[in-house]
């Protein structure tokens, strides 16, 4: 008489235990996979951001590891500092130079290397070479090319842009353009690959239909290629904006922020303040840069979703 309820209870208990284990696995497994990322991001990103946030409201002495609370004084000082405004302006100017070039030049290259002609793979490799060239090497080469007695200087005189040999990197009016060209050269191959992937996902029959309708190459590019590449354009634009905001290496290696601060961008400004042990100002400026970067990322998300909606429509 008692056997049946006992067996039932045992089955029930087993089922509950099994369900419990399943739920546990369901709940814990994702966390287990996420744990390495959480730890790495926490230690190397979140905690430093929180520390920087704290330091930006202190008069912090990094070596003594102490500081008094000063409220928003560091931000006030930054906003009064003409070097900060100059670095912000330089960052914006840098973006304005780099953005259109980074969007269109790699696109043209991608269209060219997307042709089915002999030896095109060699060109793809050649265009990609700057991406894998270490920045130190690239900076040395470009410094030589830009020098007063270098090829670029001679070329600019020959085509009549300058009257006498001019080193673009040491003139305050041209230094930023000089550095921007290095950035564009370095990123050309990388963005070309993004466009190439975009191009190869465009269905061939669309081009065939256009050809039957008598469309010219330019018409095909204008009406098919360019609109279909819109998501890639958005991606390249946003990546350029974010990378441009953080530009540092090429500047540090070529001009060091000079001449007279003409190439000091926001990151360079933060780095200089940090190296001068002005950690609180560096942290406050870092927070401003973070806010600007988040703004750019939100813009990216908005633009990407808009593009996706447009394509779906």
């Amino acid at each position: 008489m008692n056997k049946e309820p006992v067996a039932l209870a045992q089955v029930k208990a087993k089922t509950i235990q099994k369900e419990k284990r399943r739920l546990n696995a369901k709940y814990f497994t994702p966390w287990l996979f996420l744990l390495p990322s959480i730890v790495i991001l926490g230690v190397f990103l979140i905690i430093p951001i929180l520390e920087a946030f704290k330091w930006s409201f202190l008069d912090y002495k990094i070596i003594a590891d102490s500081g008094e609370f000063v409220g928003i004084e560091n931000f006030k000082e930054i906003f009064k500092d003409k070097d900060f405004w100059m670095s912000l302006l330089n960052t914006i100017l840098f973006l304005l130079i780099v953005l259109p070039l980074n969007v269109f030049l790699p696109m043209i290259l991608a269209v060219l290397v997307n042709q089915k002609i002999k030896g095109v793979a060699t060109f793809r490799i050649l265009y990609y070479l700057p991406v894998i060239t270490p920045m130190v090497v690239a900076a040395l080469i470009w410094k030589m090319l830009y020098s007063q007695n270098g090829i670029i200087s001679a070329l600019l005189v020959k085509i009549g842009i300058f009257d006498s040999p001019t080193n673009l990197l040491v003139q305050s009016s041209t230094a930023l353009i000089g550095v921007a060209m290095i950035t564009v050269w370095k990123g050309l191959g990388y963005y070309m690959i993004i466009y190439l992937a975009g191009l190869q996902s465009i269905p061939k029959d669309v081009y065939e239909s256009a050809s039957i309708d008598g469309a010219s190459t330019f018409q095909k590019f204008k009406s098919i290629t360019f609109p279909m590449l819109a998501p890639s354009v958005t991606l390249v634009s946003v990546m350029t904006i974010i990378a441009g905001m953080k530009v540092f290496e090429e500047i540090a290696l070529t001009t060091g922020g000079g001449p007279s601060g003409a190439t000091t961008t926001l990151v360079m400004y933060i780095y200089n303040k940090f190296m001068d042990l002005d950690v609180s100002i560096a942290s406050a400026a870092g927070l401003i840069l973070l806010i600007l970067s988040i703004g750019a990322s939100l813009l990216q998300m908005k633009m990407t979703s808009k593009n996706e909606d447009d394509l779906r429509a």
Partner: protein
Amino acid sequence: MKKNKKKLVVGTLAAVLSVSLMACGNGKESSSKTSGSADISGKVTLWTASLSGEPFDTYFNKLEKRFEKLHPDVDVVIEDIPQNEMEQKVLTSLTGSNVPDVVNLNPHYMSNIAAQGGLLDLTDMISDKTKKSFLEGPYESGVYEDKLYALPWYLTTTVSWYNSKKFQEANIEKIPTSPQEIYNTAKAITKATGKPSYYPVINDGNTIMEKMVSLSNGKPIVKEGKAVFAKNKDILNYFKLNQKMYKEGMIPQETAEGSLKTGQELYMTGNTAFLEGGVTFLGPIESGAPDIYKVSKAAQPLEEKNAPVNVAVMNFAVPAKTKNKEAAVALAEFVTNAENQLEFSKTAGTVLPATKESLKDDYFKNPGDSPKSLGMLQASNSLERAQVLIPPTENSAELRESTKNIFVKNLQGKLTPEQALKQLALEWNKAFNKSGEKVTF
């Protein structure tokens, strides 16, 4: 149940993060423990700046063994850090717990770190006898706010370097000793060679600041934390002539970058005929451009004979967080004593010792007849009038940065020399007001 699981997950994460943070922490507890015993023992790490390879490896190996023989319980570890990474490495180590015990620093960075309490106050740890064994100027460069933070190790004084072949081409026989003579010489050489001829080294602005002090020849350019050079005729003339030389193509455009390294590159490629620099200047030229090296000659700095010239000091400081204070101080004293400084100067062949005793050695009167040795001779001759022209200050970085920026603007004609000096005085006053330092130099 669900709440408990959440707690468990959050708890695990917190624990993992805490462990990670502890590993990255600044180790305050461990660093506060210092050797209390009188006998020195344990491990001491010494950092040198860009002195790896031969002949330095052999020198440091011997030095290490000699110190370990004197103090058998001490284990010395000497590590070399590239000069351009030194400040970053020192800063990183000082914010953590893995600090070197003795570190090679320049006086400006030393003062920055000392201002934040990062260095050990050596005032009462070093005997008066040792203190008096150093040359006064270099010794003072280790003093910040009346406290001794570093011991001078070696010196480099400024000398002038010139390409004698280019001087011959332009029929120049005398080394210029004033801005006007520099202008005349540069003009003649540029006319004869068709290339830029003079490179005023700017570095991070420090050499221009030193030049300003040399030019004012005894009159302070800063009094009690106030810039007083705006109407100094000699400095104004220097700014005017540099602008003129740049405009007329005698100064290469790359001067706007201003580092000694760029100066070396231009000198090697024949785009500069004369400049001022330390004795180490010819190092890369000897291997990179042997023909130019052979015709290179050294002379006194491009100043009047009685004008003070700068002496650059490399010193040894002991971080406050050292876990082995006594051994660290003993090692710093040992490395900087007269005997070891003399041997180091002979090993390097391009630097001068900072102790009075070692300078008496015959080596500094007859170092040899190679271009490098002649530079050494000029440097030891100029040591008589050499001083640390700019004292270490907390606002040093701001002073140097504004000097470089404004000098370059003046050079490129973006400011008139008068405007440049006025603006520079304003920037310096702003920096002194901010730091509250009342220095005179």
